[in-house]
């Protein structure tokens, strides 16, 4: 029941928010309360979850189209608990931010945000391929509207770009889903066996590669992250991208052992290329969102390296890093939004010197920046180290690329921190620009606090992602 409740609560909430004729603030406030209720529900779920078991838990199954083997089957594995946890926390922060800034047409806006949350949660718990596909698609529609209506000046181009890319991915995935289901005779992931069809695998892989995004499927990323409302960009890069991780973990890697074996090299090269490419561009891009966006792309490349190591280190590292990245990129995007609101721009050339007289902003941005660059001792460091260890199993060169990524991350993250906080006061920074307000802190600090807890104890996630079993066993035996 809990699985279904976690999906239904935000979607029902979306309907309520859309229908109730409340004032602007009341609508947004109700939406935020629903998002917090979702967090509470997740806490209940996690507290009842048996982290020592690697079995599917809280599972519910209903026949849907029996003749085609389609069912509504949902449930949690250890890693789904953590991915959903990151999702509900990040989306609550994003919805809270929309409340804080007072987005126009709040009934539509918040209904879409809540609907998006429900769709993401549904993707993470789906144990049936068609349900997975439907949830995957259901995420896109709110995103199109959110970007197309509430986006920046170039929102039309951004939306079109995003639509074209994601539709292409969806098309391939739908074909892959149908082909896989037809050849297996079922869409139930637990019942379906493995396939050695390279094309079906590629259909899934490309769809996930676009969603993540992986180099060179990231063409939608720069303009979308720049034009979307900042909290939508946060949700997009923080949690929507993680559906690709779930897809790789639950479907693409376990169900296609032979194609994975044949194509691992190619995917690892693309992951490594994305890591370096994203980092190098982040190092020179001229605006805050660009840095966070390309850094996000680099991180997804890194996570892919961990996933396709297909060993315990890489898989545990990839799950940990997915949770970390969701929390940190959402924090960073919201912080960027807060700076942009104060200065009217995110261009680095016009910023600077904001630390003076704004100690809270300086402290929070510094902490978030240090977690972004994975300073040793942080949760992101633990994740990167595990991924580096894991991918070494596939070749020492990949581990060296991860190490290079560590150095590049230091370069672009420090550049961002200094450009906002240090040296002389930028032309767009007025003296009246306030320090972070309590309302803003209430959104960012919980996420940063989660990251600090994970920094003190990363084993919390890595020990329980695959229950008592080893990640590699689960992927190469249980999930097949």
């Amino acid at each position: 029941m809990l699985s279904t409740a976690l999906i239904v609560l935000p979607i029902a909430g979306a309907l309520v928010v859309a229908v109730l004729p409340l004032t602007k603030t009341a609508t947004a406030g109700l939406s935020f309360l629903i998002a917090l209720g979702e967090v509470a529900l997740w806490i209940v779920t996690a507290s009842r979850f048996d982290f020592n078991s690697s079995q599917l838990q809280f599972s519910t199954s209903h026949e849907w189209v029996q003749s085609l083997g389609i069912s509504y089957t949902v449930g949690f594995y250890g890693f789904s608990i953590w991915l959903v946890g990151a999702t509900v926390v990040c989306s609550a922060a994003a919805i809270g931010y929309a409340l804080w800034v007072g987005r126009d047409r709040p009934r539509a806006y918040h209904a879409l945000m809540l609907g998006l949350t429900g769709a993401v949660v549904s993707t993470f718990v789906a144990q049936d391929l068609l349900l997975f596909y439907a949830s995957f698609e259901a995420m896109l529609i709110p995103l199109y509207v959110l970007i197309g209506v509430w986006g920046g000046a170039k929102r039309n181009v951004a939306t079109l770009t995003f639509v074209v890319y994601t539709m292409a991915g969806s098309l391939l995935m739908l074909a892959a889903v149908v082909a896989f289901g037809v050849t297996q005779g079922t869409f139930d992931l637990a019942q379906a066996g493995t396939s050695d069809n390279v094309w079906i695998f590629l259909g899934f892989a490309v769809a996930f590669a676009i969603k993540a995004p992986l180099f060179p499927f990231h063409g939608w990323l720069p303009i979308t992250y720049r034009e979307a409302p900042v909290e939508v960009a946060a949700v997009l890069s923080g949690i929507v991208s993680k559906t690709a991780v779930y897809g790789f973990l639950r479907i693409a890697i376990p169900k296609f052992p032979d194609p994975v074996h044949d194509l691992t090299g190619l995917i690892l090269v693309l992951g490594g290329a994305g890591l370096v490419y994203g980092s190098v561009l982040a190092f020179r891009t001229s605006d805050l969102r660009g840095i966070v966006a390309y850094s996000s792309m680099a991180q997804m490349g890194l996570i892919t390296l961990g996933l396709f190591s297909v060993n315990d280190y890489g898989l545990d590292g990839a799950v940990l890093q997915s949770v970390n990245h969701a929390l940190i990129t959402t924090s960073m995007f919201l912080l960027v939004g807060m700076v942009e609101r104060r200065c009217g721009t995110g261009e680095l050339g016009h910023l600077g010197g904001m630390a003076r007289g704004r100690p809270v902003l300086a402290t929070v941005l510094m902490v978030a920046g240090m977690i972004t660059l994975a300073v040793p001792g942080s949760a992101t460091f633990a994740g990167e180290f595990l991924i580096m260890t894991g991918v070494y199993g596939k070749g020492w060169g990949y581990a060296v690329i991860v190490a290079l990524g560590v150095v590049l991350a230091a370069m672009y993250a420090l550049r961002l921190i200094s450009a906002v906080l240090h040296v002389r006061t930028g032309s767009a920074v007025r003296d009246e620009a306030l320090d972070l307000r309590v309302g803003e802190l209430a959104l960012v600090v919980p996420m940063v606090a989660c990251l600090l807890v994970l920094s003190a104890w990363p084993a919390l996630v890595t020990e329980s992602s695959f229950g008592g079993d080893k990640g590699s066993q689960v992927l190469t035996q249980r999930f097949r």
Partner: protein
Amino acid sequence: MTVAGAWICLFAPLAAALLITLTGQVISRRTAGVIATLATFVAFAGAVWSFFEVRAESPSDRENLSTLYTWLVAGNLHVGFQILVDPLSLVMMLIVSGVGGLIVLYSVGYMHGDDEERRYFAYMSIFVFAMLLLVESGNFLLLLVGWGLVGLASYLLIGFWHQRPEAVAAAKKAFVMNAIGDATFALAAVLLVWQTGTLEYFGVFDQVGSMSQTMVDLVALGLLGGALAKSAQIPLHTWLPDAMEGPTPVSALIHAATMVTAGVYLLVRASPIFEQAPHVQHLAAVLGLITLLAAGLVALVQWDIKRVIAYSTMSQIGYMFLGAGIGAYGFAIFHLMTHAFFKACLFLAAGVVIHRLDGEQDMRKMGGLRKALPRTHLAFLAGSLALVAIPIFAGFWSKDAILASALAYGGALGWTLYIGGLLGTFLTGAYTFRLYYRMFHGEPAEAPAAAAAPSHAEHGEGPRSMLLPVGVLAVLSTIGGLVYIPGVWEPLETWLSEVVPPLVVPTTAQDWGSSAIAVTLGLIGIFVARRAFYAGRQIVTNPGLWRLLEQKLYFDELYDALFYRPAVALSNVLRRDVEEPVIERSLDEIGSGTLQVGGEVARVQSGLLRTYALAIAAAVFVLVVVFVAVR
């Protein structure tokens, strides 16, 4: 109960950092300083407690491993949040918390009146915690965590005055250069995980023998990379002189007494690995030699007093690398300890001068300070004599022990290191006393800055919180080396040799004989500096050489051309030739193409939606057929 003191030692500074950060403006600036100072001395007390507990144990049984909880788990790898309390870590804990406590106390006076004292003391407490974590850690990953966190604290403190572009640039440079070291260190740890399945020191050391030679060499190289960056040894040294942009107590604590010597600690701690990779260990010694000579030469021509001391630090750490590289582990740690005393003393005394002169650091604008600052003068002189290794002063016992070990090591390598090291003592005498004479002797420079800064005149040479630490450190610089008198009294060497048995032990005759030569060369250096000073000329007279040294051997320019510019160029090329034309524009074309097609189709068909639906269905059908049929 042996480890309780060590845990207190570790967590007291962290508690102080949290307290200062979370209370914010509730506490006064001075209270923040007091909290940080007390916490560091509590840490020292914890270390002393642990020391006596461990000393009571039998010598063969002094390795106490204590795990708080499991920090990271993946597959079969379990990494605990664990500390190792043994004779080596205890010496380091005592140095870090003891010297650290004195320097934090000094900061209370030095930073008084700064806008952001609370932030300063929070950072200092974070640093002390991180440094203690580094030396107390019981495994390589937690060591790396401490390693990275001291780098973070160093970054924050170098860039403490963040309005100054030079300070921010220096902070970033230090961080990035150390990130390179962190990365090679991490790679070494990755190799260890695959080779030994553990990162605990003893687990790793037990299995080093069964690793292939290539693997041991690679692990040792990775660790050495980390050590070179952290300890500012050539070729990863260029960040340290720039780091002098930070407040002077920071330079004393982080960039002289403790953090920069972490590389030496690593070489000694991981000696079972380095001993299996003798080439890498020798490389450490040779790089130490090169650094000690190069830094000694560059120090001869610098004008900024803090930069001279910074180059001197690089040079002295070079001696420690030299010692650790030939297996004289106890002496390397011994020199690390005396260096912490006399270099902190020099920096803090220099801080009194800078404080008095209202921020002036150029020695050309100083002179005759002996009369204005008599006590500071004495402290600086004690530190200088210890640095040049003049008998009975602390550096004499430790540096000469390293040189004697090189002599005892023998062979081509031993002799090269020995002769190079001796040359270094001459350079040390020359640059140290060039600085000393310029600052304290001669006539006061015209319009001395002191006259322009009456604000500090009322408390003479500085508040007691500053003079007390300087005094204690001056005493330690004088007598702090008396824990090793060759052939007579060698408690420190005995204490350490149980955990890190030396590969080379000089005879008493080698010790005293080598000292005679080294002291003579040091005195000649002092004499040369003195003559040059009173003759009103420079020690380096060749203009070409002067320029080469003044430009710090062009390392910055070289790295700029080799790494920074190519990185920028690569980024620009990727953006201009790949990202924009290929990735972004192609998309525009797809986009407009879709619109066109959509438009065309829309004219033929009745509605877009139905068209799209139909097109998608058709496309999916085709794809499914292709997927299933075409194999």
